[in-house]
């Protein structure tokens, strides 16, 4: 990976961290609200299904996670195990894709009308 790509990774991780700071705050407030008000799963799904702003918020949340986590993991693996090169990049790319697909599936599951 060339220097420019490495610099892009650094920038992407910082930018995604800035987004995640906001996303995590909203997410935690939402979770605390839902728990404290005793919302049931059905009531929660009633609010999320077909709710496009909610879906877009979590869509961006998932994308930010999928960008942020593998870059950080790449740094940790490189620093801890002196692991470099294409093998490392492919592994963390796989981790990022896993987070992306898992997250998108979860968002779709609670957004799509009639989904499980």
């Amino acid at each position: 990976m060339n220097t420019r790509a490495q610099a892009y990774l650094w920038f992407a991780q910082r930018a995604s961290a800035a987004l995640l700071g906001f996303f995590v705050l909203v997410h935690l407030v939402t979770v605390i609200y839902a728990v404290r008000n005793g919302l049931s799963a059905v009531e929660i799904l009633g609010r999320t299904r077909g709710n496009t702003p909610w879906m877009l918020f979590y869509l961006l949340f998932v994308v930010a996670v999928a960008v942020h986590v593998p870059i950080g993991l790449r740094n940790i693996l490189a620093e801890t195990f002196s692991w470099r090169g294409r093998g490392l990049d492919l592994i963390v790319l796989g981790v990022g894709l896993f987070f992306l697909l898992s997250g998108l599936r979860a968002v779709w599951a609670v957004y799509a009308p009639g989904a499980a």
Partner: protein
Amino acid sequence: MDQTPPPAAGTIEVSVWRSTGPGGVAAGDGRFETFAVPRAPSQTVLDVVTHIQRYLDPTLTYRFACRVGVCGSCAMVVNGEPRWTCRTHVDKVSADGRLEIAPLRNLPVIRDLATDMREFFDKWARARGQFTGSRTRHEAFAVVAPESAERVQVDLGIECIGCGVCYSACDVVEWKRDYLGPAAMNRAWTLLNDVRDDRQRERLAAVAGDAGCHACHTHMSCTERCPKHLPLTAAIAGLKRATTRALLRGEL
């Protein structure tokens, strides 16, 4: 008014790292050897090492030159922290009357307390730490206003003496052997702010990426330990900003 402290009485127990193999061994090949050194008023750690070499064991190997904090030769790890030994008073680092003196971390040990500084200075070169101007002797001197923003940044970092203390204190250097380290990037930052230098794109490319400024975790050990109190972490942060701007403009 400050009063001159009374002469320190007694001796101090000093553990000194000694290489057990031939020259060029790693820091791990050795052991600590203990010496009893007489205390003296205003005694520095370098005074202690010099006493050992002159009076107790002439085979002790260490490096120094100016003895007054200018040359950057005498840095060692003293009681676990990298320091310049010529300006470190024993009183300030040895509250319990003991000293442990070891070679700088993150550098190969030549012998005892002397480290091989080549990789440290090679990285200055890798970070494009050389001034490259375009004016000739036939042109007028460049005018750099002392109060200009660039010159102020240069002033903050220009007093580096190349002692290697920051390099020894840096966790990232330990984790990533190709990481440029704080001193090399501070040098690059001062040159980046030198309006006379005309190789800035090359310099930004040299300090960017996994082995450069983007690997810094902002632990600030370099800034904390720098004997000249230079804002090294801020210099690296400046490089991050500059490289990001260049990246977004397609100039990196």
